[in-house]
């Protein structure tokens, strides 16, 4: 390892948010923090963490959020062991905004890393800070971003992507210089169309970012002092009444610093999705009727598929082999946890004189979590099957998320239209829901511990 590489040590900070805004992930968020919900068989936060592993000289990964520490304790210790990179959960005492949250833990983030103290003391300084939002689903091209960031020589580089002009207004729209890639203009969820390039919520910064955040904070304090003299001004602007330590990255840092040769962009050509419902800006005409819970779960299902697809390149060993000789016929990208049991029976039927396959048929886009049991002749398409689920013989699950320890009866059918404009486009079964034999559940959200003994359609079942 040369001196130059030791000079450049990085940390990654992944913002995981908190339970306060998790209502739209019900009924599944009733059991698990959203960042730990499995996509492609791995907790949502696993995907950015796994991507961080590819950052050269990565010293530490921090997860920052408002969830209780104990909710992440088990996961953090197991992933640290697995990746051989220290991962630590930091709980915010209150919301600080994404930039404020980063700043709040600046001393920890910049501190010496005990694991690497054998290196020269001058080389232990952190040179780059990656900031990632957990509810973003993309390929996280972090090493390439870092390379670009170093070339640009600015304070920060933002991952951007081109989207359709119709959807751009739900995100931060930005304009970059086509030759230098400098960020020239940034507007969060603009009223009128600015650009089809949007902020992906993935950044790399040099430590000067802390100075910039401190600057905003100091400015706030000064304004607050002024406001004591002019209460009229305070009434004029809600923004200015924000607490001094609440600093948003987009409005308070990116917008003011655009066009000042400090921020640059790196455009990804891969996939990108946001795993949350658009907040204040939805298009009432087209989206008003869509249930927000359903929408979020549909995004989860889609992102699960995108991550499964990415496994082809990053972790092909996680994908289930599709040759059908073991226990199931596999179509497309499928993850099956090693502890899940897929019933293997196939025999030659003399009577029908055809090879009767009683294999389950699984895929595309299916992930089956630990200890699930999949019976003979089951068909799974575009679904997430969580831990301990039992799916009995000949049942069908399509466009659905099946919660922990659910039981799906023989010849029963759990399905949704999978249509993006449908009110309930994905069927969600909460924990320990029991669908009896031959029952059909279409386009429903079912809360935990219910038994369904008659068919239901287009309902939320409390």
């Amino acid at each position: 390892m040369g001196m130059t590489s030791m000079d450049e040590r990085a940390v990654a900070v992944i913002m995981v948010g908190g339970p306060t805004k998790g209502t739209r992930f019900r009924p599944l968020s009733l059991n698990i923090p959203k960042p730990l919900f499995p996509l492609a068989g791995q907790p949502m936060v696993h995907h950015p963490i796994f991507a961080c592993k590819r950052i050269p000289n990565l010293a530490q990964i921090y997860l920052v959020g408002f969830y209780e520490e104990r909710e992440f304790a088990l996961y953090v210790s197991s992933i640290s062991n697995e990746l051989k990179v220290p991962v630590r959960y930091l709980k915010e005492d209150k919301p600080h905004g994404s930039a404020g949250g980063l700043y709040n833990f600046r001393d920890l983030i910049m501190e010496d890393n005990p694991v690497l103290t054998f290196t020269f003391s001058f080389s232990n300084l952190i040179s780059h800070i990656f900031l990632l939002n957990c509810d973003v689903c993309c390929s996280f091209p972090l090493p390439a971003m870092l390379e670009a960031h170093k070339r640009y020589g600015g304070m920060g580089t933002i991952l951007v992507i081109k989207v359709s002009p119709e959807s751009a207004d739900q995100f931060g729209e930005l304009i970059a210089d086509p030759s230098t890639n400098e960020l020239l203009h940034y507007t969060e969820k603009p009223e009128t169309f600015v650009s089809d390039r949007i902020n992906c919520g993935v950044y790399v910064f040099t430590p000067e970012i802390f100075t910039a955040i401190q600057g905003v904070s100091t400015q706030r304090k000064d304004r607050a002092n002024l406001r004591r003299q002019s209460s009229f001004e305070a009434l004029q602007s809600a923004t200015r009444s924000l607490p001094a330590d609440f600093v948003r990255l987009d409005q308070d840092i990116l917008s003011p610093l655009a066009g000042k040769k400090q921020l640059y962009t790196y455009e990804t050509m891969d996939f990108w999705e946001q795993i949350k419902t658009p907040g204040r800006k939805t298009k009432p005409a087209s989206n008003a009727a869509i249930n927000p819970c359903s929408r979020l779960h549909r995004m989860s299902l889609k992102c699960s598929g995108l991550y499964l697809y990415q496994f082809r390149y990053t972790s092909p060993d996680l994908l289930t082999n599709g040759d059908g000789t073991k226990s199931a016929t596999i179509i497309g990208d499928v993850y099956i946890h090693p502890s899940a049991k897929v019933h293997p029976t196939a025999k030659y039927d003399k009577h029908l004189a055809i090879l009767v396959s009683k294999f389950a048929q699984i895929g595309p886009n299916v992930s089956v979590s630990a200890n699930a049991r999949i019976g003979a002749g089951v068909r799974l398409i575009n679904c997430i099957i969580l831990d301990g689920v039992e799916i009995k013989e000949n049942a069908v699950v399509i466009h659905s998320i099946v919660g922990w320890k659910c039981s799906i009866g023989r010849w029963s059918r759990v399905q949704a239209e999978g249509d993006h404009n449908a009110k309930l486009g994905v069927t969600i079964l909460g924990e320990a829901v029991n669908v009896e034999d031959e029952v059909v559940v279409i386009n429903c959200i079912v809360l935990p511990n219910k038994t369904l003994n008659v068919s239901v359609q287009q309902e939320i079942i409390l």
Partner: protein
Amino acid sequence: MKDLSTMKALILVGGFGTRLRPLTLSFPKPLVDFANKPMILHQIEALKAIGVTEVVLAINYQPEVMLNFLKDFETKLGIKITCSQETEPLGTAGPLALARDKLADKSGEPFFVLNSDVISEYPLKEMIAFHKSHGGEASIMVTKINAGIYLLNPSVLDRIELKPTSIEKEIFPKIALAGQLFAMVLPGFWMDIGQPKDYISGLRLYLDSLRKKTPSKLASGAHIMGNVLVDENAKIGDGCLIGPDVAIGPGCVVESGVRLSRCTIMRGVRIKKHACISSSIIGWHSTVGQWARVENMTILGEDVHVCDEIYSNGGVVLPHKEIKASILKPEIVM
């Protein structure tokens, strides 16, 4: 009744059978299969069994199709089958006047009138005894309502003119006034199977009756639940669960892991593996794809193909269609 061998019967076949579409788009209603045989054969066989020698079908369309089909049965059953074709709809009494020459012969024997939509145990022997016992002009079989099975003396024909007339509303009241009409309560089941919902319930009643009378005709085995009729030329794969109240016609192939309940699978149908069908009618030579779900009064016309993994909730599908997208709410697919 000195000599039963000269008894005759008229079956009111009627019109287009629109209520039983889309099945009647492929075959005239009397030829639509019920419990693995054309509806009208249930009646003809019952008539033959008590010694009726000639059956007149009062029909107002496609007599050639009917006669061509029934030609085989004429010889097989040893019964004469003729058609009396209305050129205009004559109601329920008019066809009797039209077929007068065939029904009234020198013997003076009473003749049966049956509605082709009705399925029952046909207690015709009991009806003859009843008719003989009261000595009146006309007997009608009743359940809670008129069961559509009559035994009439030839003299009733004198009361009917050759014009559109309702036997129930115009002729019976007159016979009743004359004190010549007698009603017999029908023992056993009875069902008008002229529409799909009743067709499906009718099959349940029919198979219940078969269970009591000739249980050997019903299928048995670990994969059979309740009353199931399987044609000897149908194939059923392993891991299936079939019943209750299912009829599987000749030439059908039911692959492995299939679930069938309360349904009729007509001649030449293929049900692919792991499919699940309940409360439905699958028309001739149709296919149902693997992991498909067909239920809630789904009626597939002739030669309909439901693709793999499709769900049909009450889809009524006209002949020769391919269903590639799920039908979530009852609807008609043209």
